[in-house]
Structures are given as C-alpha cells and as structure tokens.
C-alpha cells in the first residue's frame, strides 16, 4: 500500500507516493532523483547517506520516508548558495579531502554539523565527530584538515 508523504527538501515542498517501508534515502534518490546522497552499507555504519532532518545530521538509510513526513530535509544538493560552494565544500576541495568522492556528500553534511556543535574543535574532536562516516581513500588526513580549515583552526 502506497501513501503520500510530503516534506520540504532543500527548501521546496515535495510529495511522493511511497510504501511504508521505503527508506528516506531511497525516497530521495529514486523518487526525487537527488542522487548525491549515497548508500554504502546496509547497517548504518558508513554514513554515506547522511542528510539533515530538521537541521540535524541523520543517516537517511535509518529513517523511513514516512518518518520524515511533514519535516524539513536538506541534502548535499541543497547546501550551495547562488552557485557558491559552502565553506565546507570549498575546504574539502582546497585540502584534497576527497578522492573517489563516494563518501564525500555524507562526510560534508556531517562535518558542517560538527562545526555547528563545536566551532573550534581539536583534531581529536574532529576525528571522533566523524567516526560515523567511513572513507576508504583518504586515510582521513585531509578530511580532518578540511574541517580544521573550515573552522579556521590552525593545525
């Protein structure tokens, strides 16, 4: 049985017909064609699917679409403004904080929230703050550098 869910996605009201079991990530990717949010595991470990739900970072593979009904969702496609990269996106670019790019959207979405909660983190706080997002390419060295740079914290 499909039913309609309506939510604000990147500032625009969107409605889709979904099954009760449809995951938010599949709603975003397959119904709304927002494919920047990725699926990297099936156990909520990798964080590639991280989006913001009412302003907090969540793993969208662990949220049912119906749970987001009436709520506000932001994806990686929604954080640039007027064609300008968000400061965190720019920092990832400038520090070589990405290689294959698959974990990057989730990593950026988490990193922005990390700094909102802790604007001047130590390296250790950055590393623990990113624990829920896995990357196999970068060894995290330059991801940590990106977050540090976006925070304006010296190495």
């Amino acid at each position, binding site marked *: 049985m499909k039913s309609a869910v309506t939510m604000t996605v990147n500032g625009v009201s969107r409605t889709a017909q979904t099954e009760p079991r449809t995951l938010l990530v599949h709603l975003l990717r397959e119904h709304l064609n927002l494919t920047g949010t990725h699926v990297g595991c099936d156990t909520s470990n990798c964080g590639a699917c991280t989006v913001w739900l009412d302003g907090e970072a969540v793993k969208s593979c662990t949220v049912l679409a119906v749970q987001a009904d009436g709520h506000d969702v932001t994806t990686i496609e929604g954080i640039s403004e007027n064609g300008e990269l968000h400061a965190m996106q720019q920092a990832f670019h400038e520090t070589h904080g990405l290689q294959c790019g698959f974990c990057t959207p989730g990593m950026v979405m988490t990193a922005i929230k990390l700094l909102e909660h802790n604007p001047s983190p130590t390296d250790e706080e950055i590393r623990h703050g990113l*624990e829920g997002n896995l990357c196999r390419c970068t060894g995290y060295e330059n991801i940590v550098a990106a977050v540090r740079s976006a925070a304006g914290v010296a190495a």
Partner: protein
Amino acid sequence: MATTAEQSKGIGESVLRKEDSRFLTGRGRYVDDIKIPGMLHMAVVRSQYAHADITGIDTTAARGMPGVTAVLTGDDLEFLAGVPCGSNPTGDMVQPARPPLAKGRVRHVGEPIAVVIAADRYAARDAADAVVVDYAPLQAVIGLDAALAEGAPRIHEELDSNVGLILTHKTEGIDAAFAKAEVVVKHTIHNQRLIHVPMETRGVVADWNPASDELTVYSSTQIPHFLRTFLAIVCGVSEAKVRAIAPDVGGGFGAKLNTYAEEFIAAAASHKVGAPVKWIEERSEAMLATCHGRAQDAHVELAADSNGKVLGMRAHYVQDYGSYLQLLTPLISQLTMLMAPGAYAIPDVDIKVTNVYTNTVPTDALRGAGRPEATHAIERLMDILAEKVGISRTEVRRRNFPAEWPFTSPIGLAYDSGDYAKTLDKLLELSDDEETFARRRTEAAARGKLLGRGLSTWVEICGFAPSDVTHAIGLTPGGWESSTVRMHPTGKATVITGTSPHGQGHATSWSQIIETELGVPFDDIEVIHGDTAFAPYGLGTYGSRSVAVGGIAVHLAATKVRDKARQVAAQMLEASVDDLDFAGGAFSVKGSPDQRVTIQEVAFRAWQAFDMPEGVTPGLDETVFFDPPNCTFPFGAHGCEVEVDRDTGKVEITGYIAVDDCGNVINPMIVAGQVHGGVAHGIGQALYEGAVYDTEGQLLNGTLVDYGIPSAAEVPHIVTERTVTPSPTNPLGVKGIGEAGTIAATPAVVSAVCDAIGVADLDMPMTPETVWNAMQKGGAA
C-alpha cells in the same frame, strides 16, 4: 599548497583537482545514479552453503509475486564461457570451470544460484527471498590445513587434489648459503584474509537493445575494456557491439579489477527480458560475493652471517585461492614470490608457493596484491634477525640494502633505480633520537602505557611491463597503455586515456602533463576515461600502473601533437622546423621572438588545413600505445610509534611517518593523498580487519558492524615526506604510488607493537585480546 590562477599548473605542482566540484555538490554519477527508461532491477539468490549439491530450485512462489518479470536460473541463461581468469603462471595450470550461475554444485556461501528481475529493488529482493533452493550439503573445506589434509574432500573435479598450482624458484647457491650460515632465523607469518570495502559496492546497469543487438553496460569497474572483451566472449555478442562504461567509480582497491558473474548475468538477463537491468550490490552481499584478498601463510627462514648479512632465504608461501579463480587470482601469490627478498640483496633463494582451493570467497588483488604479503614476511624476519644478532632494526636493513645499482634480485628482476638508505636516513631524521625516545618511553610507562616503535623499508614492483614479460609470467593481457591527445579548432584539448581512475585524480594529473608538454592551459583541457566507445583500448587502473604507463602514453601523445604542430607552425612562420623554439605554448623563430604562433593558432590552421606542409595531414589528433621497457620499483621507509595499554592490550598509534620515493611526481598533493589512504588501509590490516569463517564456511563478520574498517578516530596524523630517485624506464622518471602505503604500513605497525611489548611477532589483526594474551605469555608487561 594550493596554486593560484597565475601559477603554472604543470608537472610538479600541487594543483587542486578538477574532478572535485561534481563530487562535492552531489553531481557525481555512479552506477546506481543511472536510470534508463523501462529499467528493471535484479536481485541475486545466493548459496547458503559453502559446499553442496543443488537438488532443486523452486521459483514458483517468486514468479507470482508483485512486480516480478522473471526468475532465472543457470538453466535459463546461456553463456559461452565461464567467469574468466586472465593469469596462468605456468601456462598449463588447470583452471576449473566457473559458470556465472551455479550449475549443480556450489562452492562458497554467496555463490549466485538464481536471479529475480522485477520492477524495483524492493520487489526484486522480496522475490529473491521467496526462491526455495534445496541443497545436499557436502563437507566444507575451510582453511589451508583442511584443504591440504589427507583425504580432504576435493573441491574441483578437474583436479587431483585441492592444490591449484605450485610455483618454485631456486638458485644454485642456496644450500651452500645455509651450510655456511652462522645464524638462522625461522618464522611463520599469517597474512589474514581481508575484504576490500570500497565505499561504493559493485553495481551494473546492462542494456541489451533487442532491435540493434547492441549491448551497453555501465559497471563500477577498474577495467572497462577488459569488461567489454569478456562480455563478448562470455555472453556471445560481437565485441564491436559492446560498449562498456565505467562512470564515476567509488573506490576499487582491486575489488573491481575483475569481471564478475553478476556483470555477465545482468547482460544475459537484459537480453532475456528485453529491458535494461540494474543490479546494485548490497554491502552484506559484497562481503560474500566480491573477491577477498591476502589469506596467505609464509614459512620463512633466513641464513645470515654473525653481522646480520643475509646469505640466503628459504620461503614457502601457502595461498588460499578460495573456491574459484578470479581474473588474476594466480598472479597474486606469484607476485609474492617475485618480491620475496624485498629491499634486500639476498644472494640466494629457495622459494615455493603452494596455492590451494577452499570453500570460501575467491581471493584476488587487494591494494598491493601479493607485495604486501612478501613485504610483511621479509620485514618481520629482518626484525627477528636483528634481535638474534644483536644489532638494531635499522642497522640490519642497512647491511642488506643493495650496494650497487642497477640491482638485479635473485629472482631475476632488474630493479629500475633506488637509494634505500636515503629514505631510511630521512625517516631517522624525522624521528626521535634514541635518547628522547627512551625518555618518552619511561614517561609513558609511568602512565601505564608501553611505548614502542617500528619500521619497514619497502620496495614494490608496479606498472607491470613490458608485454613480453607479462606474457612470460602467464598474464593474458599485456602491460601497455594508450592515450589520444586531440586539439580542437578553438584551441582547447581533449585527452582520452585508457586508464580508468576511481579516485586517483587522473583528469587533474593528465591535464598537468598536457599543460607542460603543449602549453595549453590546465583549465582548457578535458580528460575522458572509462568509456570504450570513445577510447582506444586501454588496460585500466590497477597495480600502481597509471602514471608510469598511462601517464607516459599521455606524455608521448602530446609529444607527437607538438611535433606535428611544429611542422605546421614552420609553414605558418615561413621558417625551417629546426629553426623554431617552443615555450609557453607558442612556437617562435629562433632569435626573433616576435615571429610566433601559439599552439592554439596552429590547431586552428591544422583544422582549416590549407597551405599545409608537404605530407602533413589535417588535424592535430594523435594516439599512442606505450609499452614500457621495464616495471618501476618505488620504495621507502615508514616508521610507526604506538602506545599499548598495559592493562587492556589496546594499541594506539601515536605517530606515523612515511618517507617514500616514487621518482618524479606529477602532483605532490595527490601523491601524499595516495600514501595517506594506503597507510590507513595497512593500519586496518595490522589492527582491525580480518574475515573470519567458521568450519562450515559461514562468514562470521559479513557486515560493516563486525568487519571493522578504520574510522577517522582509528587513524593517526600521518606525516608524509619524499625523496626523489627518478625511474630510468620512462621519459618523465615517474613510478607508481597507489599501493605503497598499504605495503609499508602493516609491517611497520606490527614492528612497533612487538617493540612495545617485547615479543618477536604477533598475529594480525592485533586486537587488544591478541596483544594482551601475548603480554601474559612473556611480553614485557
């Protein structure tokens, strides 16, 4: 580190990547992002037993489920060949049959038995769960000992036993070396089974057009051209009608250096149902169906004199192939054999490799592919030898580094260039001196922490070539690479490369090569890769080959473009070809710098093509196939410092320094990034990762909940430094770097933990339990 617009973006600069913006904004296009009208979804029914005969498959319930188009078994899909293997080291190795969909018997948990094709992935998965398979279980063969045991069940009927291949290499003086040895050290090293875990799993979209008979396959692969060739062979379609595309690929690490059953099944299923078919691997499926790596034991013995100079090496490597041969399975332990003596001038060797089948997921290349195993074994033995003869771990290495270059190893490999003491010296410069370290060790002990440090001095072989050599070691493909460099009438340039990057930044590095060779601005260059419809045949990206083979092809194609442009420019300037300088993207008459034409102006003229020099054809568009004269052998010295908790055995890495030498570099930022990722991967093997099977062949840690790849919190700050010893085998003097960190890190971390707790060796992963138990048995706790 970043460069500004005014600065050169040529070779040697840390230019920021042109690939980044699409990934940063969610506009990358990976396989799962591709939708084709009418596309159906495939789910795979996999064996639940490690070794069994299939006695029945009941698809009735599944066929009747909502949204289901078809349920297909091995009886429904025709294949002309099995899943291919492209390595036969002896030439006469028997290679067991491996149908894409199991026929009659299954040999590992996760082997594909049937597929469901349905309207969406949820419907496909529901129906796959409703397919009922009856099995008559057979005894599973798990582990090397079980495979080699007298009377062990045979996994493949084509073979007399579970031994798939034995390789040997023995030099004449080996017995004399052991006879005159003053010291002999002997040890067994277990190199545990690993799972690659690129963050993107595998995935395929296959679109076999029923009207035109053209087959387009998008796949998350490192080797699109091989995929096209094997799709043609296995699925029985003209290779000329197949287009294989590697779109954005979310990491590979060797897992995607393969052509898999699901790629052939999706293509055949698309043909059968007359619609495009998408299959996206689930993570827990990936753990059971994508190849694994490592899984090798090494029994190694070194004969040395009392000064620690090694006279001879005996080694017996026993490799777990798993249940079948993947694309390069036999090559991996062969590479271990080739690199067995590592960075040391060991005069004589006696090496044997025994390769066995077990009822587990097949093993194949995993970042480093056979070289990490070789390096780990020899590095552990060097540490043990140092202890035995009473010299430092650095000194034992120095005494065994090759003294003269070029150096030919006892295996017969000519290492292209090296200066191993230089990287070791630099590592020591960057590390605490003995006194400081001793003081810190005492301070740590007061906190209940055991401080230790270790090192590895590594060398590897990469960019396998020339093709005469790849043929001689039994590889089906050669070792060359292709590139096309095309100047457009408006002065922009397109580079088409046969490499197939999946994170390595080739679009950036290849553009840097073009800017340097042709003076075309970096931002005016586009790089196309991964699409067989556009590119001349390319072998792809693996084995740290891309820059030293593919990058050189780009360089040579650019050189050809420049040579032709010089002829056109000479005509335009009414000068002789020999009378022209080329600098900053313009040709000028020697002594008359005002008489000049830019490469862009030449490109426009070559397109107009009037008044061309005699014998010069229109256009500026050159293709090169480059087959290097030798492999490259990058090297380095890595140092690791750890603190071990005395009460729990937990290891924390407190310092990591990587000093690598990959010759000249195109982009230092990208090179450092490759090292960072490689080191993290090597740390994963040392401390966290390891696939565990039970005796029935069930994978016990088949999700990312229980198979722990390192997170940011488990990886330390990594210091990267380089020395530069150019390779003489190519005109840019470059060597590979993609696998270096992985090869170097694992032995360096183990060396450090052993030093901390005072033991000779530790099995990996060095979990708190392993370390704590070792401390109780006589470590320095």
